[in-house]
């Protein structure tokens, strides 16, 4: 452990959180092709504005460049990745071998999730795996690090992968009463940090966090509140009406609708909506900072990486801390 100066993984995200800074993570979506340049471009935009960036793993079950491949490119570009790993596409053998590879390529953060069901994606005919679930994946990645052993119990001889281990939780998923306990289970499984689903309903999230804090879970795991800028009123409506487990209050939809009203020029209209989306996001971040137990924000600007420098700047989150 000495090589990490007492840190579990030595990742920048771990250091920032351990030092007590309000952390910022962003998201980098890999392309639907094999172009390394896309990753480099996006990494260049995010670098310096986030402590680490999530690299999604076939998000919404659509084939994209692998999160580990893209993550390795991000490492080369000087942006710390949080490699996402879902339980949908691989069994425990593939997951562990991928984790060994990811670590060898310089990846230090892993986010464990179950993964969107394949019916949503571009290969609905696929067989899904779900050999283990996200809770068990957390345990497995922690085991590689702390027990120095594979999931089967066999010892890892030589270098073992030492990741900073993340999980996700949706405060708006049902049953609401169970969600704080489920977060507690993820902490018990050994998660070091948790990123939440996108939050637009702040009162409901506040209630969730009140219960989390009552259980003392925020002391066992760092909680990053999920926020994100809306691009259009249509996107807001879609999330409100179509995405299971999302809670977008009408008030937010109305604001997005009002933003473009009366503007004739299409470009200007779109720009006004985007500006409002950024404004809402900055306000959300300001509210998140006041909620007890929230250790940072995870800003999801999907296919809109350029928004991150603007949001972090306006929310007063810059410069990002440098922790030795």
């Amino acid at each position, binding site marked *: 452990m000495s090589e990490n100066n007492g840190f579990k993984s030595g990742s920048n995200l771990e250091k920032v959180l351990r030092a007590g800074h309000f952390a910022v993570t962003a998201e980098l979506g890999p392309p639907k092709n094999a172009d390394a340049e896309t990753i480099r471009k996006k990494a260049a935009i995010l670098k310096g504005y986030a402590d680490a960036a999530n690299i999604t793993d076939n998000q919404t079950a659509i084939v994209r460049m692998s999160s580990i491949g893209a993550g390795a490119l991000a490492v080369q570009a000087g942006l710390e990745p949080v490699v996402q790993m879902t339980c949908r596409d691989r069994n425990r053998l593939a997951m562990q071998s991928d984790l060994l590879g990811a670590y060898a390529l310089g990846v230090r953060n892993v986010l464990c999730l179950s993964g969107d069901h394949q019916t949503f994606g571009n290969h609905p005919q696929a067989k899904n795996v779900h050999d283990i*679930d996200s809770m*068990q994946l957390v345990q497995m990645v922690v085991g590689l690090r702390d027990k120095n052993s594979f999931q089967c119990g066999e010892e890892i001889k030589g270098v073992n992968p030492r990741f900073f281990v993340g999980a996700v939780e949706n405060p708006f998923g049902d049953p609401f009463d*169970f969600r704080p306990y*489920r977060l*507690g289970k993820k902490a*018990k499984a050994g998660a070091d940090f948790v990123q939440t689903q996108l939050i637009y309903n702040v009162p409901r999230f506040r209630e969730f966090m009140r219960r989390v804090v009552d259980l003392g879970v925020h002391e066992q795991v760092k909680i990053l509140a999920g926020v994100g800028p809306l691009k259009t009123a249509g996107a807001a409506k879609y999330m409100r009406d179509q995405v299971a487990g999302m809670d977008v209050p009408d008030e937010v939809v109305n604001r997005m609708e009002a933003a473009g009203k009366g503007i004739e020029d299409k470009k200007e209209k779109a720009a006004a909506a985007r500006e409002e989306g950024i404004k809402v996001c900055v306000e959300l971040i300001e509210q998140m900072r006041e909620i007890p137990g929230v250790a940072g924000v995870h800003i999801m600007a999907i296919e809109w990486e350029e928004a991150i420098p603007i949001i972090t700047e306006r929310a007063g989150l810059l410069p990002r801390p440098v922790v030795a």
Partner: protein
Amino acid sequence: MIVAEQKPIAEIQTLIGDAKRVLVVGCGTCVTVCFAGGEKEAGILGSLLRMSSQMDGNAKDVSEVTVQRQCEWEYLDVIKDKVADANVVLSLGCGIGVQALAERYPNALVVPGLNTTFMGMLQEQGVWVERCAACGNCMLGLTGGICPIARCSKQLLNGPCGGSSKGKCEINSETDCAWQLIYDKLKAQNRLHLLMEINPPKDWRTSRDGGPRKIVREDLRLPAAEKA
């Protein structure tokens, strides 16, 4: 029980091809109860095949017979002559029935008339639902009698996932979220503590993943001499 449904007629016709003498074999057990391959369905399908072949100007000789259970040798022996007489045997049993027929009569050409769909039950008239995936190591004792393997779209052992919304699964609004059901049941039973424990990874060796399964009960086996 095993739940199945009939294949589209065009597919069945392709499977039969230009065979002249067709024997439709119904089964009197599960597929009778789910109205897919019982005596009645065998009769209807038989007449349909007869009529359509007459209309095509290539009249087939189609006959029907229904056995009590297609998945047991002894019930198959009684149709020996009929099978021998047919060019094609169209089984309306589940996948097990089809294979039992094919195994019992190696020279016969046996084709399936049904798609075997799942192990489940009738929920309401006309609606069947899946209940068990035969994982080989039943965990219903931990989950309030609701199976997360067969009924959670992601087979989660520590659900519910973030997509659970208003009691429904993220895949569509018609599918109940198994973990919401489990939560409700355990809560009503005052056994929510069961959900606070982390279920460990499942040992899938007892499931299909361990290869084709077989049960040998030494206590029930006949001595070698008697078998012969």
